[in-house]
C-alpha cells in the first residue's frame, strides 16, 4: 500500500469529520466517512449552506478574512439524542477551505449535568447556611456572643470571673396562686410577653438577660464586657420594669406585681451541662440579689448598700435599715424609687 493510500484510508476512518470546500463557492470537494455519517445521508454533500442552513455565512467570511479561521457549533437530533458538533474552518492555500468537525455531544451533556449538579449543591449550601444561622441564633439566645465564639472555637467554655457586675433579680408576687387560679396557658402567654418586654428594656441599658426560672427573671450588667456603669444600668432597668408593669396593669385584667433586688459583686459565668447547654452565672452577687428581692414589698426595689452608694447622686434612694441576710449577716438595705 502506498503512503498516499494509507493517508487516505486514515483520513476516511478517523473519528473526526473532515471536509474540503471551495473558498469561493463553498462547494464540497471532499468529505470523509465520519463527516458523511453525521451530515449527509444521501450521496455527496453539495454546498455548505444547504448542509448547514443555520450557519452564519457572513460571520464566517469575516472570521476567515481576519484570522483565516472560524469556529461554530451545530446541533441536530439523531434518534432523539441531540448531537453537538464543533465546526472548525481553516483557510488553506489555493482557495481551499478545510472543515474539521468534532463530536462534543458528551462534553455538552456533561456541562449540562455539572450545571444541574452545581445548582443543587449551591441550593443545599444556602440551606445549610440558613440552618447554621438558626442554630447560631438559638445559641446566642442562651449565651453571650463572646462566650458563644469561645464555645465555637474550642468546643468548651472556660468559666470566667466577671468582677464587678451588677445583678438584677426579679420575682413576681403571688405567681403560684395566679397559675393555680387562672388558665395556665394564658398566664404563661402573658409571662412571655412581659419577659420579652423586659429583654428589650434591659437591652437598652446594656443588660444581658441570663435566665428565667418560672417567674424569676435575672439580668446582669457588666458582662461579658465590663462597663463602669453596671450599677446604673440595672437601676435604670429595674425602674423601667416597674414602670412597664404599672402601665400594663392599667389595661389588663391580670395584675402583675414584682419584687426586685439589686446587688453588685463578682460572678462566675459558664456554660453548664453537656447535652442541654445552659449559660449561668454563680457568685455572691447573684445570691444577694435574690435575698434582697425577698425583702422588697410589691413593686419595690431593694438595693445593696454598696450599690446604693454609687447610685445616691443620681437616683432616689431611701435607707430601710440593717437587715440580717441569710449567708451574708447584717447588711444595710436601701430602697430605690422612681423619681418621676
Amino acid at each position, binding site marked *: 500500500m502506498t503512503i498516499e493510500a494509507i493517508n487516505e484510508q486514515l483520513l476516511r476512518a478517523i473519528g473526526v469529520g473532515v471536509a474540503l470546500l471551495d473558498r469561493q463557492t463553498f462547494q464540497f470537494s471532499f468529505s470523509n466517512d465520519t463527516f458523511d455519517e453525521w451530515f449527509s445521508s444521501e450521496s455527496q454533500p453539495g454546498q455548505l449552506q444547504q448542509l448547514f442552513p443555520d450557519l452564519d455565512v457572513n460571520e464566517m467570511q469575516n472570521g476567515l478574512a481576519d484570522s483565516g479561521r472560524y469556529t461554530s457549533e451545530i446541533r441536530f437530533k439523531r434518534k432523539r*439524542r441531540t448531537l453537538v458538533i464543533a465546526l472548525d474552518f481553516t483557510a488553506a492555500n489555493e482557495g481551499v477551505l478545510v472543515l474539521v468537525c468534532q463530536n462534543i455531544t*458528551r462534553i455538552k*451533556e*456533561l456541562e*449540562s*449535568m455539572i450545571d*444541574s*449538579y452545581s445548582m*443543587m449543591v449551591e441550593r443545599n449550601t444556602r440551606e445549610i447556611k440558613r440552618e447554621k444561622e438558626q442554630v447560631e441564633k438559638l445559641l446566642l439566645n442562651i449565651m453571650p456572643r463572646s462566650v458563644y465564639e469561645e464555645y465555637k472555637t474550642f468546643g468548651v467554655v472556660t468559666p470566667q470571673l466577671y468582677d464587678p457586675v451588677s445583678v438584677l433579680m426579679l420575682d413576681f408576687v403571688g405567681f403560684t396562686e395566679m397559675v393555680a387560679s387562672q388558665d395556665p396557658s394564658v398566664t404563661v402567654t402573658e409571662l412571655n410577653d412581659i419577659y420579652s418586654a423586659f429583654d428589650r428594656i434591659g437591652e437598652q441599658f446594656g443588660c444581658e438577660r441570663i435566665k428565667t426560672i418560672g417567674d424569676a427573671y435575672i439580668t446582669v450588667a457588666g458582662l461579658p464586657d465590663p462597663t463602669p456603669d453596671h450599677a446604673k444600668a440595672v437601676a435604670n432597668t429595674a425602674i423601667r420594669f416597674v414602670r412597664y408593669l404599672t402601665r400594663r396593669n392599667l389595661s389588663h385584667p391580670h395584675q402583675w406585681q414584682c419584687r426586685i433586688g439589686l446587688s453588685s459583686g463578682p460572678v462566675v459565668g459558664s456554660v453548664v451541662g453537656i447535652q442541654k447547654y445552659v449559660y449561668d452565672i454563680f457568685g455572691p452577687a447573684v445570691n444577694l440579689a435574690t435575698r434582697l428581692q425577698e425583702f422588697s414589698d410589691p413593686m419595690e426595689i431593694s438595693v445593696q448598700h454598696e450599690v446604693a452608694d454609687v447610685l445616691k447622686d443620681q437616683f432616689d434612694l431611701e435607707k430601710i435599715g440593717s437587715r440580717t441576710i441569710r449567708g451574708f449577716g447584717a447588711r444595710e438595705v436601701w430602697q430605690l424609687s422612681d423619681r418621676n
Partner: protein
Amino acid sequence: MTERTLYEKYGGFSKVSKIVLSFYTTLLDSDEIGPFFDDVDMSRIVDHQTKFIATLLGGPASYTDKQLRHLHSHLEISHAHFDELETVLRRTLLEHGMAADDVDVVATEFGNRRPLIVG
C-alpha cells in the same frame, strides 16, 4: 452519626455522573420510553436525570411528591412504561457495579413513586 447514603457509598458525584449519562443514553435509545423526550431540550433532560438519580440515591437533590406529580401530569405514562424504566434503571445500576441489594433499595424507592407518575 447520620447514615451514609448510597450516593456517598458509590463515590458521590464523580461516580454518579457516569451512571446518569449512561442512563440518559439508554433511555433515549429505548423505543418505549424515548419518545417522551422527543421534544425536550437536551440540557433539560440531563438536568432531570441528574436530579432523578440523585434523589433516588439520597444525593443533594430531592424532588418533592408535588413536584414529581406536576412534572409528569401532562404525560400519558402507563404501568408498562414505568416497568420498563425500572428495568433500565436496574440494568444501569448493575452495570456500574452497584450491589444487587442496593439496587433493590433504589428500585423500591423508585416504585414508591409509581402513583405520582403513572396515570
